[in-house]
Structure formats: C-alpha cells, structure tokens
C-alpha cells in the first residue's frame, strides 16, 4: 500500500504498524516524534497503531537544544 512519508509517496507492506514501519526505515524510535495525519501519536501506541493506505506519516527528530 502507499503511504506519504515525510511528503514522499512510498510503497510499504500492508497491515503494518507504526512500529514495524519505523523498523523497516531503520529509525531509532526513541529519538523521534511521529505524526500521523497531522496528529502526534504517543510512542506507547506505535506498536498497536496500524498504518492505513494513503496515511501521511511525518517523522520529526527529537530536538532539545536551546
């Protein structure tokens, strides 16, 4: 199925969770915030949240500088 990841269309396996998606992209889960269709999704629910076709997934790196 197609997802829009950081603005770019990408083909990914169907029935994957946000957690599996991140693993497939080799992204360390504890250094990002994940936004699904404009909503920040809490990290505790990534392993249960299914990606749906045409979901917009935006991955932001966790910055803490000041």
């Amino acid at each position, binding site marked *: 199925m197609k997802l829009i990841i950081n603005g770019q269309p990408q083909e990914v396996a169907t029935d994957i969770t946000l957690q599996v998606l991140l693993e497939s992209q080799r992204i360390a889960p504890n*250094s990002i915030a994940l936004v699904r269709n404009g909503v920040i999704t809490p990290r505790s629910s990534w392993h249960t949240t299914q990606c749906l076709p045409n979901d917009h997934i935006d991955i*932001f790196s966790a*910055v803490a500088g*000041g």
Partner: protein
Amino acid sequence: MTKPITALTSRQFMRYSRQIMLPHCGEAGQLTLLNAHAVIVGVGGLGQHVAQLLAAAGVGRLTLIDHDTVALDNLPRQTLYRDSHVGQAKVLVAARKLRQRYSDCNVDTVIEPFGAPTQQQLPRADVVLDCSDNFACRHALSEASYQQQLPLVSAAIAAEQAWLAMFTANDIAQFGCLHCVFPADTQTSQSCASNGVMGSAVATVASLQADVALRYLLGATSQLAGQMLHIDFGALQFTKLQRSRDPLCENCASPLRKCS
C-alpha cells in the same frame, strides 16, 4: 514581595504605548504585565532573547535559572553577552544587563541547573519558560510544572529543526504534556548536523516563545491550544501539529499530586 502596581505612571504609559494600543493588551494588560512573574529556565540561545523581550515588554519580575557560564562560541547567537563576559555566570550577566536597561523589571537569579536535588520546585509564578538545552531538564520542568499546575511554554531548536508548545493544566488534561510527545527515554539524535545552529533561527524561535507567553499573561486566546508548532528552517515551513494525550504517560497519566 513587592506591592502590586495599580496605575501606570505617565512615563510608563508613553513607554508602553505601542503595546497598550493593541486590543489584547490595553492599559489593563500592561498593568498585568508589570505585576507578572515569569520564570526562565536556561538563559542560553533561547532564554537570553526571551528574557530581553519579556523585560522590554514590561514584565515586572523575572527569575532566571541556569548554572552555565558564557562561552566564546555562544556569542554569535546569545547577543546579550559579549567577549568580556566569557567565563561569567550567564544569569548574573543577564540580570545586570536587564536591570540596567529595563527599570520596571526585577530580576532574581538561581545559579543551579533546574532538576538538581535542590531545584525540583518552581517559584510560584504566572508562567514558566523552558529555554533549556537538554531533555533531562525539560522533563524535570514538565513534571514540576504539571505537579505545581504552572503554565509552561516550551521551545527547542537544533540545526534547522525547532518546536514550540504551551502546556497548561486544562490543555494537558485533553492533549497531554511534554512527556506525551517525548517520553523520558527520548534521546536527541547525535549527528554532527544537529549540533550546529544559526543565531537568526534561534532568535526567531525565542521571539515566538516570548509572544506565546505574553499573550498568555494578557489572557488572550492561545494560538497553540492543544498543538505543537514544528518549524523546519530549511524549507521555512511552519506546521501546527495536533497533540494527543498518552494514556500511559509517565507524567500526566499519574494522579495529580497537589503541592501544599
């Protein structure tokens, strides 16, 4: 404790006239600012700009909390400091400068990192600004402000990425706290790119952070209710993201402990 200010002097009326003209400020709003107390945690890139903007706007009391000293590589973005300040405690230099420039502003200083054993409690204030530079301090602030029910305006920047959010008790009940976005085990990415930053971008984020805090103090409608602003300076893209509460949050999902 200073006595509340109940009327503007004619000089104050002139000085703040461009703010007083604004519908969300007015004379009553300016009095509110003069009687307001803001805590600024971190007076580095973000904090020293925020402190200048709040003091210049007439916020009557600032508490500056930071243990750091001025370093040479701070100077391109921390424009309150100059070469001769290198090695001096930032809060002391900042307090001296602010008192010289802004006679309406009283400045208190704490030369300790927030989150240290003796720095777990925030002073009773009207608003707290998280201008720190690490997640340990940000999480300590998120916990303390939640427990003490103090509004927190938090911002961060590294390289070309930044975010800004305001957390109030009401807002957290519905949309969660900082921990809901970045849980306690969050690590910043250690790439070289994330270590650099441009002073102009830092000043932009600090100005937005000060604006959110001033509007909050004035009782104006929040521009960011339930949201987090994400800024990508590379694309000059500003995106408002909806926050959502984590039902398993280690901070705000636990029952609220009332502090006496």
